[in-house]
């Protein structure tokens, strides 16, 4: 039997892997997101290593202690660690990685749209969405703006 060598005649088909997921935020994540909904930021504290983690974790990756203590981090104490601009899609958006003094980690978010240009090291504050629009998610921070 002659096999078809014509590409049009070769068998091929589409299929998909039908997977969906329902995630949990976890022990640290649940608390972090509930606090975000209230318009506050908290880091978890490792007393052994004298470190604060934001986003918070229930353990210290260095000394492996279980972390039960949390401390407020002021939304006004951020600075831009790095930034980039998204130019595709519906207009230009600026993504910032914001860090906080004395805190390990950082938050990814958007810079306030407008004429202000971000700069590395710029002091910024996290601006939360109006209370009724918050869902307990990272997007409860509407944007970061220059102080």
């Amino acid at each position, binding site marked *: 039997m002659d096999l078809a060598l014509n590409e049009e005649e070769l068998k091929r088909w589409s*299929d998909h*892997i*039908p*997977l*969906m*997921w*329902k*995630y*949990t*935020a*976890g*022990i*640290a*994540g*649940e608390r972090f997101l509930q606090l975000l909904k209230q318009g506050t930021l908290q880091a978890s504290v490792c007393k052994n290593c004298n470190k604060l983690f934001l986003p918070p*974790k*229930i*353990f210290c*990756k*260095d*000394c*492996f202690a*279980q972390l039960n203590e949390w401390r407020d981090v002021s939304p006004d104490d951020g600075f831009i660690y790095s930034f980039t601009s998204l130019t595709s899609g519906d207009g230009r958006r600026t993504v910032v990685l914001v860090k906080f003094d004395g805190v390990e980690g950082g938050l990814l978010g958007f810079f306030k749209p407008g004429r202000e240009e971000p700069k590395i090291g710029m002091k910024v504050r996290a601006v939360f969405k109006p209370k009724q629009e918050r869902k307990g998610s990272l997007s409860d921070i509407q944007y970061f703006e220059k102080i």
Partner: protein
Amino acid sequence: MPRKVCVIGAGMTLFRRRMLETPKELAFEATRMALESAGIERKEVDTVVAGSAPDAFDGVHMKGEYLLDGSGGYARPYSRVFVGGATGVYTPIAAWWHVASGLSDVCLAVAEEKMSPLQPHPQYAFWSIFDHTIERPLGVTLLWIFALEMRRYMHAYNIKEEEIALVSVKNKANALDHPCAQLGAKITVEDVMKSEKMVWPVKRLDVSPTSDGAAAVVLASEEFAKRLTKDPVYVAGCGWNIDSTYWTNRDLSYPQYLENAARMAYKQAGIKNPRKEIDFAEVYDPFDYKELHHMEGLQFAKKGEAPKMTASGMTQRNGEFPINPSGGLLGVGNPIAAAGMMKVCEVYFQLTNQAGKRQVKKEVHTGLAQAWGDLMQYSSVLILRRN
């Protein structure tokens, strides 16, 4: 010559259908317990091996790098191993060679699985493990091929469903004494027979549940272990082996690949008569017939004779040859990789008299843990021994 390797600690989380903890947090809890059980800190850990089955369960691609912080792998030589359902026993084997080779004095082995995120059911992860040309168009699921295997096993040795159901009855009862167990229960053979038919002859109570959980053990060189105890638990032997992906070409009534893996481990451990020289075993039991199948592959019983051994009561926790004193996957639960590691933990707990209400009646020195996976083709075997 490889160095002598010891197990110095073990820990595990609750096994539950759905846990709040993230996969990383589950791994942390088990790892922390294992370190506490060993009485050491993370700073004393040289290397880390994590084991987890398909990324599709937790819903995080590259699960190895995702799990590393919770597994204690940060800033260490760290790797993830993955051999499907056999991962949980293969992970400490991989940790063994880290220590046996002289590469490290202390190696952590951590296994985690969070199956609950996958919707509508974790079994959906298995649709895509089959050949896309020959098998997937038929809509084949894992339950089909297990049903075919169970049916062939029953046919080859004239085994009745009721004889197989005894395994489920035993394991679920054993699990009543396990503080982490998900499905401990007092049930009867009749309950199993009357439970919902899934894919005949597989019924609801023949099958282990889907679960979230993590488990971990700490391995160390003999020299390190002897600083902690005069009487450590040694890794006496390990083996692993894989059959063809063409599952249709195999003898479904007998797991030859397991026999190969077991013989590799027995050779290392100097075991000639496994039934006499091994005191108890944690045999992989995602389905009740698999415990029997695996007992034969492990040379504990002749082909087709594991059901008789089970019916005689010999494999009960207080019997002559306890099989799955933990309660197994049928009773404790089946968070894939973590379930295999749970078996390694149980062997360690039994050998160190830490199994509490589950402690087997007779004195034990040598125990075996086994897991099975990939496309029902892989087996991993670990033998622990305490003088």
